[in-house]
């Protein structure tokens, strides 16, 4: 039996998925201990997990270092990797939104300055609206941008809206709903089809039960 390599996003989402896989019988004894290893292998050698930065999951899968992985729809939209998107796990639910200061009024006679971690998504959204924008790519603390007048609006992930509220911002438009997806490498889907399908079916069953 070939080992399936699974890339998990570091953080709450990844741990949740690992728990789901564990419940479905793909357990790793070591995972229950609190260790810092990046690679974990199940006792029977059927699965191997590794922890990667959430935004890198798609790359690991596209390039075949991982056969399957868990990635947010935001990452998939931003990088459009050449992978199969097999399942919507219905967890990690949030949305990609445009946010701005509460008193923000969009002046259409000016170029809109947009600060974001997701330049591709933001560009595509405003292109569809025919709006001329200036993209400011940031890697974190996006909420700061409108406050310091670095940008007019931000395009970012909004979960509960608390961070926005605490910084005197509010969501203005929703671009697209986001949730965690199971993605698979295209070649792995052919050569490890049985194993990939097993993980996929198990996760899909777990999701159905939770809903």
């Amino acid at each position, binding site marked *: 039996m070939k080992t399936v390599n699974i890339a998990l996003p570091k953080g709450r989402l990844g741990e949740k998925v690992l728990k789901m896989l564990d419940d479905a019988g793909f357990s790793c004894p070591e995972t229950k201990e609190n260790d810092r290893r990046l690679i974990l292998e199940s006792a029977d050698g059927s699965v191997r997990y590794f922890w990667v930065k959430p935004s890198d999951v798609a790359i690991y899968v*596209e390039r075949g270092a991982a056969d399957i992985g868990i990635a947010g729809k935001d990452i998939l939209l931003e990088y459009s990797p050449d992978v*199969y998107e097999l399942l*919507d796990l219905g967890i990690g639910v949030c949305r990609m939104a445009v946010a701005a200061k509460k008193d923000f009024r969009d002046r259409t006679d000016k170029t809109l300055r947009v600060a974001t971690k997701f330049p591709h998504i933001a560009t595509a959204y405003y292109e569809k609206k025919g709006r001329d924008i200036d993209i400011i790519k940031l890697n974190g603390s996006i909420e700061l941008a409108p406050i310091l007048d670095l940008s007019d609006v931000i395009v970012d992930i909004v979960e509960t809206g608390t961070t926005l509220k605490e910084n005197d911002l509010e969501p203005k438009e929703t671009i697209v709903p986001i949730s965690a997806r199971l993605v698979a490498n*295209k*070649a*792995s889907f*052919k*050569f490890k089809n049985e194993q990939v399908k097993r993980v996929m079916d198990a996760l899909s069953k777990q999701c159905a039960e939770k809903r």
Partner: protein
Amino acid sequence: MAEQMRNDETVIQGLKKLYRKYGYSQFKMSKFEEYDTYVQNKDFLISDKVITFTDTNGKLLAMKPDVTISIIKNSEDSENTVQKLYYNENVYRVSAGAHAFREIMQAGLECIGAVDTYSICEVIMLAAKSLGVISDSFVLDISHMGYVSGLIDGAGFSAKEKAAVLSAIGEKNLPQLVSICKEKNLSEEMTWKITGLITVYGPIREVANRLSEGCVNEETEQAAEELRTLCEVLEQNGLADKVQIDFSVVNDMNYYNGIVFRGYVEGIPTGILSGGQYDKLMEKMGKTSKALGFAVYLDLLERLEEPGDGYDVDVLLVYDASAPVSEVFAKAEEITNSGKTVLVSASVPESLRYREKFVWTEGGAAK
């Protein structure tokens, strides 16, 4: 023996032999092509970025990013014969990961003219055999644009919705496709048929006979029939096990119309072979004939494990200044005559992996 060919060298030899065996003749093209040739069919290219430069006479030229378009340009329309050509060329295009131009070696074949069912089956058989030249463990995924577009049209999707449906099929994104069908208020039966484009896949002999269940119009019936015929041919050739029907192979509908396919070999994470029937591209380029073909991306072969024992050379022959040249020569000759490879050097090269070492001084060779 340290004398192995690199993967791509062996593969190129193997592919050439295979294509010649079936009467394909080599098409040799120039490195440059007028930029205009590509500009009208930019979407056909894998990446629309092209290296351009101005020739001495002021004409804008391009380093060829693609071979098919040049072959079509040079082909003559014919109603009753087919031109069978193969090529092995370098092309220049932007690679997805690096965002920079790369030289990519590509081999492939094109079949242009009065393309009929026989030619289609032959090309697909050759595609499967090409993958076989690279590795024993391969899969050829086959889809049919006629079947896919027939079904989508049958369900009444508009041109804009069509793009969304196709991208969901390409991603095998079932939840997305289901929600598109729901939005469109499709009947349960129609939804089942459309989602079948994702859920139905597998070995051609199992799937081909089930396709008629999903047919909705003449276009789909015809496509299903073509796939069944193909299945018979592959069965005859003993290739049916390696060929799967998988509709997630979606090529641009503006260019491709019939069978489209993509090949994978174990150990390479992306498709290494891609092709299909592109009558619509022919039409756009002012030709009346039909055509199909495929390309093999040889640059990907680097990812495959090279066969070999890890040695660069069998014998390292080190001589010092006192050794007579003629004797060193004779010794090197003796070693090569025994079928071994030899590297003759005045010093031991760093990081060279060799099986044995001879040191030659005035007195003769010593191990």
